[in-house]
């Protein structure tokens, strides 16, 4: 599903440059649930942004579902993001003046799907994350866990091949974190490929594979026994 080779990325910081990713080789099969771990500054978010086509690499190759992601213009990139990738962010990134339903329907709007159909699909996904009754509420009227579930519903709405979650539980308490992770496990079990960036061990242990990043290189990549959440 995902294959990257010798990926490099530097950031220009005024006159000096910061080498964040120093040759990453990495492969993810369909249906995997991968945790990308590392302390802050290890390059894990940068990697996720490149995988999510939110940022571009300096060197190396990236193939997503056997399609080479390189030299894309913004238009094509936007199209790929829309169809292949779903994003979940630490700070939810919901549009604050749109209701939960409208937020979930937004990726479908950019696919050119008609309003009625959009709302039907969006309501389906809200139901899936258990927020059908909250569909008309604004983000400001939802709790943190609810916001993140709306964000997950939105990420799923366009039926992407890969779900990318950047510290999805970073802004949540541990009980809510478990709820969100349970939802992620459920979606993964339905066959969706999911990458989760985290620096928390217990979150990582809820995944099926852990990739450890340190100073821009992968220092560890192992399959683990998944800690399945049952009590939610």
């Amino acid at each position, binding site marked *: 599903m995902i294959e990257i080779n010798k990926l490099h990325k530097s950031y220009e910081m005024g006159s000096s440059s910061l080498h964040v990713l120093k040759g990453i080789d990495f492969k993810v099969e369909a249906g995997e649930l991968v945790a990308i771990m590392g302390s802050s500054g290890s390059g894990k978010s940068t990697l996720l942004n490149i995988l*999510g086509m939110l940022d571009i690499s300096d060197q190396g190759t990236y193939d997503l579902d056997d399609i080479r992601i390189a030299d894309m213009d913004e238009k094509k990139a936007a199209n790929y993001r829309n169809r292949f990738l779903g*994003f979940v962010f630490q700070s939810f*990134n919901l549009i604050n003046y749109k209701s939960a339903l409208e937020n979930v329907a937004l990726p479908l709007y950019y696919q050119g799907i008609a309003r009625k159909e959009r709302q039907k699909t969006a309501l389906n996904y809200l139901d899936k994350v258990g927020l059908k009754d909250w569909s008309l509420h604004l983000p400001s009227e939802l709790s943190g866990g609810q916001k993140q579930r709306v964000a997950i519903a939105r990420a799923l709405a*366009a039926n992407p091949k890969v779900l990318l979650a950047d510290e999805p539980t970073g802004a949540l308490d541990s009980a809510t974190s478990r709820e969100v992770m349970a939802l992620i496990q459920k979606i993964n079990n339905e066959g969706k490929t999911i990458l989760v960036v985290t620096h928390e061990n217990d979150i990582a242990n809820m995944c099926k594979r852990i990739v450890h990043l340190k100073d821009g290189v992968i220092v560890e990549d192992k399959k683990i026994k998944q800690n399945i959440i049952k009590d939610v």
Partner: protein
Amino acid sequence: MFNLERWKEIFQSIQKNKLRTVLSGLTVSLGILIFIILFGLGEGLKNSYSDLFLNEANNVIYIYPGKTTKPYAGFKTNRIIELKNEDVDAINEEFSSTIEYLNPRLFVSEPITYGLESYTFEISAVSPSNQLIEKHVLMKGRYINEKDLFEKNKVTTIGRLVARDIFKGEDPIGKFINIGSRAFKVVGVFQDISGDTEENKLIIPYTTRQQILKGTDVIGTIAFTFDQSIGGSGAVKLSNDVKSLLKKRKSISPSDPSGIRIRNVADEIDRSLQFANALQIIITFVGIGTLIAGVIGISNIMVFIVKERTKELGIRKALGAQPSEIIKMIISESIFITTLSGFFGMGIGIIILNSLDSGTLQDYFITRAGVDFGIAFFATIILIVFGVIAGYIPAKRAASIKPIEALSDE
């Protein structure tokens, strides 16, 4: 280009962000409003000037004899110049191609009596062309004519107010009025839209007056109209030529500013209208200034709006919005708001202009304050266009920003 879904998206954004909408709308409305009011008042000032000269034939040149101020050709200074019949003939001959009507005039100061009452009115001893030059309109009877001039008839055509004061409802035609010690037969009554001054006059043939003055051939002043097609510069040249001709005939130094004086009405109107035009140009500049201030206002607000929405735009991009989609969204919003508030401001401006009390305005020398709809419309369009350009630049920047940068913008 028109996309119902996009407009729904835009209306939602406008509705949910009222402060921002009102803020940018207000700037545009205010800019247009001030422009239209200023421009309208300027137009009113200009109208006042135009009205001042509306009722006078504007192709008239008057010749006044005066006193010389320089010795010349053996004559001393302070010689009093008199125009004579032969001068009129000479002008007529020399400039027959450009002069339309020539009117020798003598001003008469004589007591007027009718029955037992006596009156004071201005008396003009002129030629029949006076009617055309002064734009007298006959109400009754006839104007003095060429035959009167030739036969030196004692006839008079009187102004409307003269008829009213002397005859008080009686039919004046055929009655005799005494001018000085001579009886003149009233042959007609005229009116003049330019007002009371002309309607308080009695018109008699100048030749009759000359005969009464013991057969003199002296005339007071000469007025003549010229063919309009010679234009403003042609008129100036004509008046100069007439002046030189008369100076030569009267042996006046060519450099003497006095002796013969010429008054060119067209020239005077031109100068006054130039002043009014200059005023309006200044006002228009101030108006354009407000428009520019409006444009700068919108630009600032657009930059602010886009900045405020950077994160939202980042989210939209992450969800698959194409850059062009982002630009279209911002531009459409900006067009919608500026158009609506632009025409709103224009409407309010026109309403205010129309509702201004014309009496009060008259005190400030403003007549019919108003703005041409085309100009108002044009100014509004200009503001909208610049509003769109002002929106386009930050929108383009926002659309090209990487989603990740937009998302990290807190």
